[in-house]
């Protein structure tokens, strides 16, 4: 997050916080015992081409400000700017930058390494887009090396021009290839930052979870990481993006821009806003024509990316990787994103709650009331109206599939802590991130004095244990057994954190899917 109340001199000094990387020497800053390197170039790439390693330089390069983020098709203030404070940085196609936080610059230190993939689907975001992504507190608390990064997204990361020549063979996965390049940089350089290249975890939330899933299914990433963690993302069911459709989108983009296939290289110099506008139209056109969702994301070309595990099965080459997988109680169904009724849910009368149950659960109201009370006796019955079922079902299915196809350990979690915001708000999509990063004390709607401090110690500790040994147990983490098909063991993070087995199985079987319009959450174009 860059900004915090300081207690020591931080500004850069010559001869301090300097690291020899493969490409040259970097100088960062030393902040209260943590070395911070911002805006480290890990690759560079021509538009629609594979990334290449950074060019070597002479002398010392400063790494004290964050690098550019990838341009977005449309940047607006998100609906959740209050609950999830976003930091927007300058956007440029020159965006292959990462940031490192570490307590050591000794190559012998060999500390576990945590590489964060940001969310925002495959369309938006950056490695600094949430204030919660700042790695300093996590590095300090758990003595790990934290890496966050930016890479190509949307039309820049996933426009499949493979039909127009060998040089564009991987353009449909350029954004994914950037992730591989970043992991390659970590593998080659992290020792100099006190990290252990043999213990690298990739973790990500929402779209970032999807990116973690894509690494498991990408042969080019094999050997570059040894643990994986998916948070509220990467376990959605649905068809893969196949070349048939991704090529159609690309054809429409070219058509919109008036570029003929022979002159395809002209697309490399089109003004970004025009490219973005064409991409936006091409997606709509493709969706109308095919009658299915059109989007930018990794293309299941059977070469760079093998397709999602739900469709293609887990690859055996990455089957040994221990997994951590989970989500949060409310996700997009929380009462701030989609309010129901009037006023704070926690001040509703029993009758008023009942009326809401009738309205939203209809004939299933009785069943929900009964099973919700069994599942969560300590919670307000109104919370059932603001509970996510979809993502949780995805987590359980994903974990189950993994158990069937791999012997490597799987651990699952559910983050249930309610925020005091607005008189009580169920955990929103992203709510667990500040806890994982040990930053929850910095965020207005997340901080609960006396509760936050304890829970973030447990969560940051569990994640760090997992990257260290492949097992989240140890220290102040309550006993956390592996997920099994029969038991559905899940660590439930809340004021009282404990493992529950199959605790919400029945509830999920009766909870109706309440439809909501994602578009209203994402903001609209003007």
């Amino acid at each position: 997050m860059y900004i915090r109340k300081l207690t020591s001199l931080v500004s850069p000094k010559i001869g301090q916080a300097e690291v020899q990387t493969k490409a040259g020497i970097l100088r960062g800053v030393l902040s209260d015992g943590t070395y911070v390197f911002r805006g480290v170039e890990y690759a560079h790439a021509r538009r629609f081409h594979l990334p290449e390693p950074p060019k070597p330089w002479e002398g010392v390069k400063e790494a004290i400000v964050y690098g550019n983020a990838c341009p977005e098709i449309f940047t607006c203030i998100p609906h959740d700017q209050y609950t999830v404070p976003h930091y927007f940085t300058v956007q440029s196609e020159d965006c292959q930058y990462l940031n490192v936080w570490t307590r050591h610059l000794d190559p012998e230190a060999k500390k576990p390494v945590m590489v964060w993939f940001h969310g925002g689907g495959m369309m938006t975001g950056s490695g600094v887009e949430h204030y919660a992504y700042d790695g300093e507190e996590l590095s300090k608390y758990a003595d790990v090396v934290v890496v966050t990064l930016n890479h190509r997204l949307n039309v820049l990361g996933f426009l499949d021009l493979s039909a127009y020549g060998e040089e564009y063979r991987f353009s449909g996965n350029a954004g994914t290839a950037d992730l591989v390049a970043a992991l390659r940089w970590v593998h080659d350089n992290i020792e100099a930052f006190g990290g252990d290249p043999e213990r690298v975890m990739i973790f990500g939330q929402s779209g970032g979870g999807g990116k973690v899933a894509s690494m498991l299914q990408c042969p080019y990433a094999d050997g570059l990481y040894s643990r994986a963690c998916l948070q509220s993302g990467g376990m959605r069911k649905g068809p893969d993006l196949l070349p048939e459709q991704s090529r159609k989108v690309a054809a429409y983009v070219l058509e919109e821009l008036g570029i003929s296939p022979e002159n395809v290289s002209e697309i490399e110099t089109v003004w970004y806003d025009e490219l973005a506008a064409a991409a936006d139209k091409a997606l709509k056109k493709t969706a109308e024509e095919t009658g299915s969702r059109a989007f930018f994301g990794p293309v299941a070309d059977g070469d760079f990316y093998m397709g999602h595990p739900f469709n293609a099965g887990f690859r055996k080459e990455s089957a040994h990787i221990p997994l951590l997988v989970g989500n949060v109680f409310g996700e997009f169904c929380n009462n701030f994103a989609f309010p129901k009724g009037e006023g704070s849910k926690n001040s509703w009368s029993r009758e008023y709650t009942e009326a809401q149950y009738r309205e939203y659960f209809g004939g299933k109201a009785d069943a929900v009331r009964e099973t919700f009370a069994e599942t969560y006796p300590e919670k307000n019955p109104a919370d059932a109206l603001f509970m996510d079922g979809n993502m949780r079902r995805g987590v359980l299915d994903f974990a189950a599939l993994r158990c069937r196809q791999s012997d490597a350990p799987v651990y699952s979690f559910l983050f249930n802590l309610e925020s005091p915001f607005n008189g009580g708000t169920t955990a929103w999509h992203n709510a667990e991130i500040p806890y994982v990063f040990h930053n929850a004390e910095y965020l207005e709607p997340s901080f609960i004095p006396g509760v936050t401090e304890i829970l973030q110690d447990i969560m940051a500790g569990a994640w760090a244990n997992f990257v260290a040994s492949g097992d989240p147990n140890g220290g102040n983490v309550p006993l956390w057994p592996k997920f099994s098909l029969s038991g559905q063991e899940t660590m439930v993070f809340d004021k009282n954190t404990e493992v529950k087995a199959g605790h919400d199985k029945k509830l999920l079987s009766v909870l109706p899917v309440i439809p909501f319009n994602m578009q209203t959450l994402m903001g609209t174009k003007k």
Partner: protein
Amino acid sequence: MFIKKLTKQVICNPDNPLAHTSDGVLRGLIVDDTYIFRGIRYAAAKRFGMPEPVSPWEGVKDAIIYGPVCPELQTVQPDDNYTVPHVFYPQDEDCQYLNVWTQSLDPAKKRPVMVWLHGGGFSTGSGIEHFAYDGENLSREGDVVVVTLNHRLNILGHFDLSAYGDKYRYSANVGLADLVEALRWVQRNIGAFGGDPENVTIFGQSGGGGKVCALLQIPSADGLFHRAVIQSGVIPERPGRKHDNSMVEKVIDGLGIDREHIEELESVPYWKFQKLIAGMGPRAGMAFGPCRDDDFYMGSIFDVGPTEHAKTVPVMVGNVRGEFMQNYVRTTDDGQKNRWSAEKAESIVREKFGDAADEAIRLMKQAYPQYPLQDILFTDSMFRPGTFDYLQARAKAGCENTWGFMFGMEMPVYSGTLPWHNAEIPYVFRNADYIEPSYIPGVTEPMQDLVSSAWTAFAKYGTPNEEGLPEWKPYTKDGHWMMYFDREPRAKNADAEEKLIRFLLDHPIEMTHVRRQKQPVLFGGGPRV
């Protein structure tokens, strides 16, 4: 800055805290006992049109996140993003939003109000663009109501289409008209935030200082504010440029707009302006600013003298020692000025000033005996002459209510860097202990107490004097007083310093290492209209 380590539960409930403005009820936050309202809409406007006040609403509106900021023609990774940590934020033409920090919502409290006008020329920036602009600490420690705001900039704020019809009569100055509208909002509503509408201070830095200069010369703003602070904001040739419409014509032609259908400009997607301006060179986006029209805007103090109203307004004006000439941006030799021996420093100074070296050394020693000789190489002569010109223009007009200052304290970056353009802002806002390149343990705390207290004393009393602060006399015809803020602040006659500055203006020197602005790249992108 929004993000800080919290120690208390932040309060944001359906019924608390509420501010009852004349337009409707707003819900904000209580953070560590400070009331915060973010993203309050103060006006709305059609492109190139004058702003209109907001329409009243029913029920309670949330004011918990910042409002969008004005689109910029060129948003680049600034070369000072380390020394001046920036916040970039979603851009939208619908950008007339302000933020309030206060200690009370009781109208009877009548606390002084400080309205901050951001920098970035008249082309870029926002009320939250620097982390340092956060008003919480200034409000709490200074017991004042702090307001920061966004308004129209660049082509959207200053595009002179007056030749194309009466509806565009003020289009060259609508960015300033937004500021006037914001000050009217303050008059109507600040009581609901515990503020005193009869005691409003406008303060701003760089372009924000230029905006303060301009508001002093805008008749429709008379009476909407009562004190003014100009920080590093006086460059004599702006604002108040001659009526030069060549850029306007270039834009119209570049977009292929038929002059018979000039209203098409109102619906051109903003990115088309960006694309066009990008082709005109890296600084082309900064070319837009207020125009003197002798109607809305009367022209700069240097052209027409202070207006009768401006003469009655107490003014503080000053800048910092290094500005854009400090040694982080431009340096020489090994770049480690504080490690140079006295002999080495003198030989470098002699090399740079050549035949004028003896005079340079003499003037430096007279002006700044407390600083090492080599600091002359990094001493500003871009903003400083404007500060003197401004002080003297008011003194000449008979004003005895103008206070001059210089912020001289060296910053810790690379073991010593002269204060850069913007370096005093965290000290004014009492945020310097949050900003890496500004913070020196044990030094920053008392220094920001001192600087910020002078600002809040000025807001309270119209003079920057209060018990515990060094005595600070106004700059008048007969007394050329100046406050020099440093670890040991002192107020003294400024004549020796002025001689040095005028000399430096006439003797520009070259530096071997200059950090260059990166190539402009665009923020956002995508269809915005």
